[in-house]
């Protein structure tokens, strides 16, 4: 089956690409690795007028160390290249997250910017165009209705980015470029509670790079899936701490693939900083994970099961982090 009709635009520089975004009218969709965009175009979920290819933009390539020891990762870097990069290997938790994405085939194509800007998904949007047509449209496809939670006023589709929780706990920031200039947004603030406008990236902006603070502390990343390879997650967790053993003065925990955004569990993390990461303290904090998640949907798996997975991942990740 051919893709829907569109105009293919392949600018040579970031400035040219930003100009295309300004030129309007018509919907412009950014194309990086294509592994999600082309998938969604096949399903006619995306029917852009223009695909703007970012693949070869030099400004989006490369990994470089900044004067303060931070690392700048080009948003156009392929996941395969990042997970093998000597500078990135100094963040072993991040390498685990990068390797958790789909399959080697996909990671040979998919980019960092693409994964962090991955559109949200639910069991409805994942179906074919014919299936969706029979069911009728939803918030994401143009009407005021949600098939996942009937009463929901907003889209509850999941953020399935495997790497987003890792960047959140690493306190990374995104550099967003536009014709107006550049701005930097912490990944922890980048995602929203709306499954449609699910990031702070504006339509005229392109994610140029991710800035990682210098390597420090210890980190754990776990992805829970039905199958080991090439699968979307039931849930992911990333946890980062300084200190050693049960003691730390900073702890950050984020769960992924459960709601429209990576969920930071800062109140529970602060509790563990105060009490130490003993088995008892971890188990006590784990009892509050389900409550901290808020309303979960039955997307992919029942909400009750997701709550149990989140609790188990929380215990597993923090015990591993303590014992690192």
């Amino acid at each position, binding site marked *: 089956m051919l893709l829907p009709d569109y105009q293919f635009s392949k600018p040579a520089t970031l400035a040219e690409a930003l100009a295309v975004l300004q030129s309007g009218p018509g919907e412009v969709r950014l194309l990086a690795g294509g592994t999600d965009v082309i998938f969604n175009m096949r399903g006619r979920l995306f029917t852009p007028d223009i695909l703007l290819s970012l693949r070869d933009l030099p400004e989006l390539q490369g990994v470089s160390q900044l004067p303060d020891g931070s690392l700048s990762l080009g948003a156009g870097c392929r996941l395969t290249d990042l997970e093998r990069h000597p500078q990135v290997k100094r963040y072993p938790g991040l390498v685990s997250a990068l390797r958790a994405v789909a399959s*080697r085939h996909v990671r040979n194509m998919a980019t960092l910017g693409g994964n962090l800007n991955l559109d949200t998904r639910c069991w409805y949007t994942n179906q074919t165009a014919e299936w969706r047509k029979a069911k009728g449209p939803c918030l994401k496809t143009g009407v005021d209705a949600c098939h996942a939670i009937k009463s929901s006023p907003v889209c509850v589709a999941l953020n399935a980015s495997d790497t987003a929780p890792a960047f959140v706990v690493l306190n990374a920031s995104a550099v967003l470029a536009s014709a107006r200039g550049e701005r930097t947004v912490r990944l922890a603030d980048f995602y929203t509670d709306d499954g449609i406008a699910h990031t702070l990236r504006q339509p005229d902006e392109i994610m140029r790079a991710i800035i990682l603070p210098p390597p420090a502390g210890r980190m754990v990343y776990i992805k829970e899936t039905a199958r080991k390879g090439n699968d979307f997650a039931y849930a992911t967790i990333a946890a980062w701490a300084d200190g050693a053993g049960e003691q730390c003065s900073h702890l950050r925990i984020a769960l992924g693939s459960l709601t429209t955004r990576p969920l930071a569990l800062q109140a529970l993390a602060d509790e563990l900083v105060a009490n130490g990461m003993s088995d008892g303290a971890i188990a006590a904090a784990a009892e509050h994970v389900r409550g901290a998640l808020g309303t979960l949907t039955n997307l992919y798996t029942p909400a009750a099961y997701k709550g149990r997975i989140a609790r188990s991942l929380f215990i597993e990740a923090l015990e591993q982090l303590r014992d690192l």
Partner: protein
Amino acid sequence: MTGKQILRLTVNGDDYELLVSPRQTLLDVIRDQVGLTGTKEGCTTGSCGVCTVNNARGEAILSCLTPALEWQGRAVTTIEGLERNGELDAIQQAFIDYGAVQCGFCTPGVIMSAKAVVNSGAYLNEDEINDGMAGVLCRCTGHIKVKQAIRNVADFQKDQSPVNRSNK
């Protein structure tokens, strides 16, 4: 809506200039315009891997998720490009020797994935083989014989590598 463009593409070392629509993927072009039908269309959504071809670096990529025009000026190797001067590639021969084939539909994608695995280095552990093959599915015969065939070629490469030869 929009006009076709000329795509300059190198397939298995041969240069092509093709009139291509944005609606076509690399898979469509390889099969319908270049006329090499060894590369198969499966799920077209990146799950099954039967459309796998190798890029210029010898890595596995999914031709069904690649807009053809993204491959402007680039090279690709398909299953037809492995044979040289009438001789099968070592990985093809290993698949025959180990019987790593049943119905054969996925075989081009499995072999191009396996080729990418053996391209990636002389020293391959079990995890690296699994990692390289997780994105391609065989629903008939499973992956045991496939992995044995890869192991055989990898071990041969290891024996041939300069480091090992100097140690003998």
